[in-house]
């Protein structure tokens, strides 16, 4: 019975112009996104080859992550060069040949498409599921048969989910296959598994908005009312809460500005240089500069991490935030990975610092190993994925409540 209803939904969608517009939109958006982001990645890769240190330079640089084509996240920041000198770590950006237009607009990566466009598309699939059937009178005819309201709801959900998911997976995999044709972009098994997981989390995210659409539809009698309410909720969930959370956290957690940190560093530098001129014991002074800078950095990092944790938790009121955290961490371009890279850079600095002071040559090369998936999942991604599932189940359960009480007359 459920499958009959699901099949009806699938056929109904296949026969509607809405479905073909959505497919066309998906094809255009996914391919445009992959094309633009692929170009952007290649430019950043060229940058990396330019700033790539020689075999014995005391410089830590991480190459751009191929998965940043799909989830750019913080990859640009992670691909900066960290030069280890006697006064500490000197951070240099690449040559900025990456697409500067992204400073004006959000990078149109796969995550953005899913987060903004496909969430809206999913709402458009769900918003009229119950109310339109009521308006048309077909709900009455349907429920005059021995079919429970739960089965109607589940059937509709499955049918519409398949109509969204199948073309989405198909188009995305074709795009991904095209990316693999470029020998300059190597995903290896690391990237393949992670891409699969990104796709899976994206499907959970899309289905969540389908459930939300059905929820509102199950509580409103008129289709026009459903769409207005849903657009309002969508704007709040997708745009307002994720930005508001960060602002609120900033008001509560006090983190010094980068400028203040830089001024403190300068003060330490000036003080130690003046003392060095007097006693000529430069080695001690360089060590002191490094130690104090480390303490400053650590203090800053602790406060900054507290701010991030706080912001993340506030933002998680919106499932959009959980989606961003989950997919960016899986791709290795998230906040967690960036923090891990910085810790590795500091470890590298501490390892080679005595040799830098003694002005030795032949430093070991820096290489960064991305966190394993088990580390990624245990440090937040599992929670975020479960949180998305929770929202999904909650919305569906509420829409069931609405459906049970729905006045079909």
């Amino acid at each position: 019975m459920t499958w009959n209803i699901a099949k009806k939904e699938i056929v109904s969608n296949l026969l509607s112009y809405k479905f073909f517009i959505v497919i066309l939109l998906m094809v255009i958006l996914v391919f445009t996104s992959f094309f633009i982001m692929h170009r952007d990645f290649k430019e950043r890769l060229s940058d990396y080859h330019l700033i790539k240190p020689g075999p014995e330079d005391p410089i830590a640089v991480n190459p751009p992550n191929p998965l940043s084509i799909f989830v750019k996240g913080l990859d640009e920041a992670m691909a900066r060069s960290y030069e280890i000198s006697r006064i500490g770590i000197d951070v240099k950006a690449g040559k900025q040949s990456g697409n500067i237009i992204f400073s004006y607009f959000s990078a149109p990566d796969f995550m953005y498409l899913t987060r903004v466009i496909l969430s809206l598309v999913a709402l458009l699939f769900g918003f009229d599921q119950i109310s339109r059937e009521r308006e048309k009178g077909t709900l009455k005819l349907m429920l005059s048969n021995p079919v429970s309201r739960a089965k109607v709801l589940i059937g509709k959900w499955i049918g519409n989910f398949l109509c969204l998911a199948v073309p989405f997976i198909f188009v995305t995999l074709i795009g991904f296959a095209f990316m693999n044709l470029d020998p300059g972009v190597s995903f290896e098994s690391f990237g393949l598994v992670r891409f699969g997981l990104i796709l899976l989390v994206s499907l959970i995210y899309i289905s969540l908005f389908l459930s939300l659409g059905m929820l509102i539809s199950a509580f409103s009698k008129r289709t026009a009312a459903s769409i207005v309410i849903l657009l309002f909720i969508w704007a709040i969930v997708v745009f307002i809460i994720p930005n508001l959370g960060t602002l609120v956290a900033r008001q509560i957690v006090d983190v010094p500005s980068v400028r203040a940190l830089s001024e403190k560093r300068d003060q330490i530098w000036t003080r130690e240089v003046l003392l060095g001129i007097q006693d000529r014991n430069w080695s001690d002074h360089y060590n002191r500069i490094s130690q104090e800078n480390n303490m400053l950095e650590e203090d800053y990092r602790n406060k900054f991490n507290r701010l991030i944790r706080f912001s993340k938790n506030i933002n998680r009121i919106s499932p959009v935030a959980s989606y961003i955290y989950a997919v960016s961490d899986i791709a290795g371009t998230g906040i967690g990975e960036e923090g891990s890279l910085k810790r590795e850079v500091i470890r590298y600095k501490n390892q080679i610092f005595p040799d830098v002071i003694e002005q030795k040559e032949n430093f070991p090369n820096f290489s960064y190993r991305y966190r394993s998936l088990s580390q990624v999942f245990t440090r937040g991604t599992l929670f975020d994925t479960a949180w998305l599932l929770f929202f999904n189940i909650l919305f569906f359960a509420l829409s069931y409540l609405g459906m049970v009480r729905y006045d079909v007359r």
Partner: protein
Amino acid sequence: MEKPILKAHDLSKRYEDGVLALDHLNLDVRPGEVFCLLGANGAGKTTTINLFLNFIPPTTGTCFINGIDVTKDPLEAKKYVAFVSENVMLYGNFTARQNLDFFAKLGGRENLDKEDYHQVMRRVSLQEKAFEQRVKNFSKGMRQKLGISIAIIKDAPAILLDEPTSGLDPKAASEFLEILGELKQEGKAILMSTHDIFRAKDIADRVGIMKEGRLVLERTREELQYEDLVKIYIDYMRAEPLAL
């Protein structure tokens, strides 16, 4: 005497706004019998049908379909009833056959083939060329025919019809009632709400007049041979409101 397929026992419905839509209704419809409910708008005809279909819960009383309490076991009860509404609205993008197929399966009729559907549509005199046409271009008469096809293909012992001929031209309405006559001959128990006194008199075995939620008068076909139903109806409608 055969047991009634449709039975309302002491059935009342008071809506949340306090309106008493149905007041202690008792009626039954037996196999091979057509019971027509007459009455002005708001008399409680559609509320009765909605209660039988469990679309709304009764305030007091019980509806039985084939002996099954509709409130207690609605899904089991709905296996034995088919429904045709005033405006049969179907899936516009589907063809007549696809609509029939979908609702037949919902009604528990699996394993029917194309010819089975065509046969039912022929029976209700739907034009052959319309079988595989999309329903969105159908006239109201064609949609009502398809609606009765859905009821026929379900093959339930009871049929509920809510003003099914309203808005149909006289020819289409006559054709529709002819089909109902055939279904009656097959032993279906039919409960139909209608405003059409003349056609009700033609087809009904029993007629009930409803006013302000009450079944104020019930007449059999035999009794109506000696009485003027139109006059009775108008007299009731003109009478003072009931003291509720």
